[in-house]
């Protein structure tokens, strides 16, 4: 694939791959963005209830115990997983140089996924939640979701199998790993919890492992794999050190499956499990740092491109958040700090940093790269992208800083006023909770820009131009006329 062959055949193949995937990928991205809006709205409500418990308290569907899990479920399975599916099927097709021959099946499976998820979220809001983070949906939802997952991604595995060259790029390593890991931990965890009427303690342990695996074994490899494609692709520079990327992959594969049980520190489970979990969770900083530094070093060599490319701007910030995620994993799971933060909002902040900070920023970068190729239209507005970027970055940084610092305050209060009501300790984070709500409102605004823009692209209302939408005034003086000039390459034939 590194062969410099920009022959018309080569371009035709890539173009054909993109066209074959247009409908499923656009479905996953737009549906994901819609779910992201739902997740953010629910996030605002649940965050508001932390500091104003009277807010909508007469409506049982809108109580904190239902809205908060519905918010996380919509964020993880509605936005996160669907964005990941879009990235996986597109990138695997591109890297394996195979047009997708099963777009209809994938599209149908995507609808099944959405249906199961919608019923699951309604089930949570109706009071049928299981009470286990990230496994909140009632037990009917997981089997259709697992089956539709298989129907969506099995074709990517087939494409990988029949790829023309024997060589495997690092992104394919990461994607294949995620493709195999997801059914493993999703299926086994749900089967152990819903398939057996075992002890609730065992279910709590399985859930803690699943929660960690979802982030470290699915979102992390998908986003890192995508970033390993986007950064060299857009800058046109070789990866800083390719051997280092393989070290990063194998360290993730060896370390990440062991993490998770540190959440149950102090619970009556075998003593070695929380130790092992903390050990692995701290070590997650190694693959995070290796991948993050390797790609940031690659991007740093071309700061100009990073600045003007919407794709790279989001991706590079996603990588910065990856480094922050590794550092947070190290700090939050160190025993001295874990005792303070174990039962605080720090866990939520860590999840938001991982899902919205790291994963979503890489996913936004990927969407800004992929969508013009599969719709054959350029992004409409530089300003919408800029607004999306800046408001997102302020929102995410605010939430992470607020929850992590608030968690320290809450944890210290819990440790020092342990003989009084827990309410007293939790009320010390009141100002942080208010800030958290404000930050989620920021994200709602940013997602508004993103969703509008993406929907217009989905409707094929994008700019017909051979010039990419970059974050600078560059083409205003060009012989092709001012930027935004419609269709200077002739009438496109509709497909």
């Amino acid at each position, binding site marked *: 694939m590194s062969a*410099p062959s920009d022959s*018309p055949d080569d371009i035709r193949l890539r173009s054909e791959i993109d066209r074959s995937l247009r409908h499923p990928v656009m479905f996953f991205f737009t549906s994901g963005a819609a779910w992201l809006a739902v997740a953010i709205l629910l996030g605002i409500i649940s965050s508001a209830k932390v500091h104003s418990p009277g807010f909508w308290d007469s409506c049982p569907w809108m109580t904190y115990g239902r809205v908060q899990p519905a918010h996380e479920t919509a964020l993880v399975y509605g936005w996160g997983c669907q964005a990941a599916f879009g990235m996986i099927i597109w990138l695997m097709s591109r890297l394996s140089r195979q047009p997708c021959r099963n777009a209809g099946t994938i599209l149908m499976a995507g609808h099944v996924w959405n249906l199961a998820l919608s019923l699951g979220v309604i089930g949570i809001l109706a009071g049928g939640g299981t009470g286990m983070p990230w496994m909140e949906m009632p037990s009917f939802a997981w089997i259709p979701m697992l089956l539709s997952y298989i129907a969506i991604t099995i074709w990517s595995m087939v494409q990988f199998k029949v790829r023309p060259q024997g060589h495997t790029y690092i992104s394919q390593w990461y994607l294949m790993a995620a493709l195999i890991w997801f059914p493993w931990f999703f299926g086994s965890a749900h089967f152990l919890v819903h398939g057996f009427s075992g002890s609730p303690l065992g279910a709590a342990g399985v859930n803690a492992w699943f929660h960690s695996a979802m982030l470290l074994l699915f979102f992390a490899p998908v986003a890192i794999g995508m970033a390993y*494609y986007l950064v060299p692709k857009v800058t*046109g520079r*070789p990866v800083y050190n390719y051997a280092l990327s393989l070290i990063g992959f194998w360290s993730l594969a060896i370390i990440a499956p062991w993490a998770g049980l540190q959440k149950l520190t102090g619970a009556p489970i075998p003593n070695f499990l929380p130790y092992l979990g903390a050990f692995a969770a701290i070590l997650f900083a190694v693959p995070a740092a290796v991948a993050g530094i390797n790609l940031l070093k690659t991007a740093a060599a071309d700061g100009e491109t990073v600045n003007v490319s919407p794709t790279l701007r989001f991706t590079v910030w996603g990588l910065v958040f990856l480094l922050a995620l590794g550092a947070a994993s190290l700090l939050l799971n160190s025993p001295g700090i874990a005792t303070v933060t174990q039962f605080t909002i720090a866990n939520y902040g860590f999840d938001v940093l991982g899902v919205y900070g790291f994963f979503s920023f890489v996913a936004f970068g990927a969407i800004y790269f992929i969508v013009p190729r599969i719709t054959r239209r350029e992004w409409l507005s530089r300003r919408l992208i800029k607004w999306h970027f800046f408001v997102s970055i302020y929102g995410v940084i605010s939430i992470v800083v607020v929850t992590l610092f608030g968690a320290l305050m809450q944890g210290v209060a819990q440790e020092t006023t342990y003989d009084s009501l827990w309410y007293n300790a939790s009320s010390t984070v009141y100002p942080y909770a208010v800030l958290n709500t404000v930050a989620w409102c920021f994200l709602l605004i940013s997602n508004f820009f993103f969703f509008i823009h993406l929907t217009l692209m989905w409707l094929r209302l994008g700019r017909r131009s051979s010039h990419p939408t970059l974050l600078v005034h560059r083409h205003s003086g060009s012989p092709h006329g001012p930027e935004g000039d419609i269709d200077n390459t002739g009438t496109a*034939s509709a497909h």
Partner: protein
Amino acid sequence: MQESNKPDLDDSLNVTESHDRMLREAAAVSREKHVDEGGREPVSLWIFASCAVIFIFAGLALGNIGSLGSLFDYDQTVKPGYVRLDLSEDGAQGPPPAEALAVYIKKGQKIYSSKCQGCHGGDGKGGPAYPSLAGSEWALGETQRFSMIILGGLMGPSSSGKDYGVMPSQKAGMTAVDLAGVMTYVRNSFGNEAGDVITEEMAAHALKLAEERSDPNQPLSKDELDEKYLAPLEGEPLDPTMMIDPVSLQPVEGAAG
């Protein structure tokens, strides 16, 4: 690699190809650069150094050593005075734990009001026909003597030397907890400040002593008390400030002492 990088369609493609309709539609695809995995830049030492630091932290967590603290030091995580509510029965919330002295006094107050108050009065001062418990040497003195008066009754002169006649035995229906409570109550009320707790165990000893008498319900005289019962009741003393469960009277787990 430079010739393979085609940042823009119009700059780098030849004219014939650029007029191809398919390429026009696939402008974004055409201007793509290639992914190059040939990067072999030497890895900076600080990357390995930071990974080593991560390994040290992970090792400290796994080995449970160093100044970072421990995941499983219950002495550290469950602190003295930590209050754990009892959620055992039917999920119902039990009463919160309280200091031992207060718990026993509260129990004794109920017994006192049903068995003793009629004669000795609500304020323990007694009256013309009944002796006062406030400041009484026998109430505040040796606990065996005090318990035997309650259980067996008293005839003849009281501690003040005045003869009030016969006090009947109060043993009927009296459990060890009741006796412990009422003794603790009297010794710490009406201005009395013994400050100690008569525990359930001590009261059980008193009941045993009463049973060992030839006629348990026969009131005792001053002579008999002085002869046999001038001793403290046997049993582990209890710290009056110890946090105990008001129902089971057992010390609460993780409490001080």
